[in-house]
């Protein structure tokens, strides 16, 4: 999808107007951001916003997230195990210490 984020009052207002006018191309609306469908029309709408408001409009392309393809098993398993931990107050770093689960630091340094 195309993620459009606005950074000024004028750009935010235009985004709102555009979302109302082209509801069929909008996947989701947030306060000052919206997700548009990945169609040429979605791109057209995003580029119009950028043409009008320049650097106050950020456009990014999102990708579907498949954790079974993009994420190592250890990270997935760590997430599940941590959410099932016995003591709510245990921080993850402590939880992972001395286990096969990756440390927060290791994960931070590894790009998906």
């Amino acid at each position: 999808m195309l993620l459009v984020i606005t950074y000024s009052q004028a750009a935010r207002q235009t985004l709102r107007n555009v979302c109302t006018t082209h509801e069929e191309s909008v996947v989701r609306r947030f306060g000052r951001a919206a997700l548009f469908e990945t169609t040429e029309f979605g791109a057209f709408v995003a580029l119009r916003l950028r043409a009008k408001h320049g650097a106050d409009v950020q456009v990014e392309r999102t990708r579907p997230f498949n954790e079974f393809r993009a994420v190592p098993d250890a990270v997935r398993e760590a997430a599940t195990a941590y959410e099932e931990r016995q003591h709510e107050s245990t921080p993850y770093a402590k939880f992972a210490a001395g286990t096969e689960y990756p440390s927060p630091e290791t994960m931070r340094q590894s790009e998906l």
Partner: protein
Amino acid sequence: MNVRVEDREYDGPAVDLTTESVTAAEVLAGVRGADGPVTVSCSKPGRVHDYVGVVREDSTLPTRAALAAAARSRGLSAPQDRQLTEAEERLAALDPPTVDLAERRTRVAATTGAETELRERVATLQGRVQARRETGAKSAEVEAELAEATRELSEAETERIAAEQSLARARARVRSARNVRRERLRLQDRVGNLRRAARRHLAERLHDAFADALAAMPGRATAGSTPGTVEGDETTAALAVARVATLEAPVVLDCRRFDDADEAVTRLDAPVVRL
């Protein structure tokens, strides 16, 4: 106040220009000190004058904002003022840099396209060399072509990588510039909210005085249930705002609500130019 139209002069707080053929806009320009057919020497108009500087029969009035300005003219302040000034100052100090990525994106797209083309060409030439070798035909010429294409491909690859790295670095700069933009938007919203809250507060402070003034003015209008709103005729509302405000500069009356300029001065408690 002193008003001059051509060689005719008018003095005092109540000036009647009904015999002159001048427009409200011309008188207002004079009040604001602009050159034109009407010259006015008077006190400098304040903020409230933006709302009630001219009152005409079809006046429309953002009542709450006008009333808030009237309150300010009376020296009232709002509890939001300090925070408001602070937010406005911080906002004025923000100057988000603009980093344009379009050129870098274009370069990434172009170098990627060139690389793909060359890669295909190398694959084709490799196929041809292979075929010639298998059939025992001479392949030296094609091999030279392949070597050249391979060299070009390697250059294109280097260029594409450089373009991508340059874009990545610029994106990092944009990210921090966007933090400034985000902060600017937050402050703009904050200033807007504080201004609205201050206007509401100030309009509330004058609510009773405004209701009394509305009742005392010619025309039909009453104060609305929420402070700073009015039900009925907005020209009457404008007159009432002029009445509750402390006005040093004259109100230009382009409506026939009072018998004469003197009566208007008394009822509005402000200098008046009547058209």
